[in-house]
């Protein structure tokens, strides 16, 4: 068990969470909470794997995964933006729907070998001592995409005009509407982008970072952790990214902890009693709850946090936000 191995594994698997979280941040900033991330990830993972398997072209698979997540999210968009249904329930049903669809359409894909996206070194950067070896060597191309998307999303939200519109729509849609911003259209667009990002996260699992199709175990609850990260990060990309990498590292750490006989000079209980490993497997989920409690209570204390119109449908001409 070495720190470098855990760190690198964390950067790789954390990327999955980061894609999903960034997408959810954009959607929620526009006022649409989509709890269907798990379902969109799973359908993205399935579509990417299926297309990459049948065409043996990983790039087509990636495209299919992204679109699959995006298309599924549009169902949520119609139901919540136009029909004004409860966003929580709609998102939840999107998870059921996406999971069911993915299981049916992914029937028989388990154990198959699909084309996978390439891994590469970044020229120049990879030759920086230690740093380059850890961060820029032999990672899947999507990991580097994650590096780029995090600051890019931050810049987009806080420093550009469309980003300003995005925030306006999520904070006070009626004011945005009077300024000529099309609230409905923007909410559709960001819901779709959120879905595409969740699909990308799914594709990142099945054809890039831990390739394969293992039915519902492919995502195993990561979509929900991604949503929790958004709240924990107060809808900001950088803390979400840190959280994502942390959860990635945690996952590898709990795996590696089962190996050595001693840990930090002490007798390693997980080596001697294999059943204790079940407690290790609980940790990401318990930590997610702790992160949520922490995120929610600091948000309340600092009066910072959720976009004001999050979860509230916008009805033109009616009183409300």
């Amino acid at each position: 068990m070495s720190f470098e191995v855990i760190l690198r594994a964390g950067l790789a698997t954390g990327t999955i969470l980061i894609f999903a979280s960034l997408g959810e941040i954009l959607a929620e900033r526009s006022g649409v909470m989509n709890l269907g991330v798990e379902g969109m990830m799973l359908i993205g993972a399935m579509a990417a794997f299926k297309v990459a398997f049948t065409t043996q072209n990983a790039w087509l698979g990636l495209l299919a995964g992204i679109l699959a997540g995006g298309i599924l999210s549009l169902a949520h968009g119609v139901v919540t933006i136009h029909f004004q249904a409860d966003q929580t329930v709609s998102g939840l049903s999107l998870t059921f729907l996406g999971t069911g669809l993915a299981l049916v359409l992914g029937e028989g894909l388990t154990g198959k070998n699909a084309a996978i996206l390439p891994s590469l070194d970044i020229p120049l950067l990879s030759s920086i001592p230690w740093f380059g070896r850890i961060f820029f060597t032999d990672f899947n191309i999507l990991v580097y995409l994650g590096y780029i998307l995090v600051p890019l999303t931050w810049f987009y939200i806080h420093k550009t005009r469309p980003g300003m519109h995005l925030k306006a729509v999520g904070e006070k849609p009626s004011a945005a509407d009077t300024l000529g911003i099309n609230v409905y259209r923007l909410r559709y667009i960001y819901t779709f982008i959120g879905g595409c990002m969740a699909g990308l996260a799914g594709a990142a699992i099945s054809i890039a970072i831990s390739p394969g199709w293992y039915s519902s175990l492919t995502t195993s609850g990561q979509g929900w952790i991604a949503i929790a990260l958004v709240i924990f990060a107060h809808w900001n990309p950088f803390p979400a990214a840190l959280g994502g990498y942390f959860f990635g590292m945690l996952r590898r750490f709990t795996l590696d902890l089962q190996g050595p006989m001693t840990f930090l000079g002490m007798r390693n209980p997980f080596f001697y009693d294999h059943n204790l490993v079940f407690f290790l497997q609980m940790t990401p989920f318990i930590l997610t709850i702790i992160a949520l409690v922490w995120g929610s209570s600091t948000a309340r204390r600092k009066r910072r946090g959720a976009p004001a119109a999050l979860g509230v449908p916008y009805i033109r001409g009616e009183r409300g936000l």
Partner: protein
Amino acid sequence: MKLPFRIQLTRRTEEIPKWMPLATSVGAVVAAFIISGIVLWSIGGDPIRVFGFFFRASFGSWGAFSDIIVKATPLILIGLGCSLAFRMNMINIGAEGQFYMGAFFASLVVLVPLVPMDSPRVLVLSLMGVMGILGGAVYGFIPGFLKAKFNVNEVITTLMLNYVAVFWNNYWIFGKYSDAGFQMTPTFEKVAWLPRLADLAKQYPVFSGITLHLGVVFGLVAAVVLWLILKYSRWGYEINLIGDNPKAAEYAGINIARNMILVMMVSGALAGLAGMSEITGVVHRLQERISTNYGFSGVIVAWLAKLNPFVVILVSILFGALIVAGREIQPSGLSFMIQGTILFLVISSDVLLRYRISIVKRQEEIA
């Protein structure tokens, strides 16, 4: 791009016709089957044959029908719990975990054991029932408390706790209480089995092989009690008021935080009782995968039943049929997909109840 017409939604001001909620729910179920059939057909399946099989595998014989009721039993209890929480706009998708915790707590009666195994059956079973309720309630308390105290989204906490409960259960059934290294506990003593109709086969041969057990009575009783509470009790009134108008409830001096916790505990307790009924009535031991996603199906049941306790029973039977048939047909995700589609259509069809939909020509608007 502008279409020559647009769809206009106008909020209904009049009373909704009585038949409409029922019609939209039935319509959603039928449409879900049609959509699933199309998906099945698109991947080269034969929907007619699959659904025909579906029907035979579930309603084909008394034995099969009894299996459905057995599968519906936990759904009734969980569906009732979820519908209670929904009334306060709390979404409990942690029934899965509460079910496992209820099963675990109830099992302790036999596994520790808390009472000698030669005690009367009534004593053992009622203690198991109490423990099941307790386990579920404790597990429901956590998200309720976090929501009331820290405003933590209960959807995510209940879902996370589901995973935790499964691992917790595994720790015990793989370890201390394992049956000779298998991933299950030894079979319970007969005193810890809920009575089945098949037990009466000696007197009434009709009942031989009928797996229906006493647990279904728990479900029916719970439905009646819940209906009475919601309709006639002060607490029921408070829950409905908080759900309809939290502001008004607050001004009326109702303690919302306390009710949040209480409702989650009752919701969890019902799921815990379902867990107890499942291990004492069906599997007779604690093991892995005692639930086939009952927790999630329960959420859908509650919504489809529009939170009405008696309709929950009917819908649970339909979903029991889906689960029974789903065990035997391929692809295995099909029943899950149908359930997801049903829920999605039910909530989208709600728009029909709240709005009048009309198509307006654009020309007319300009003129």
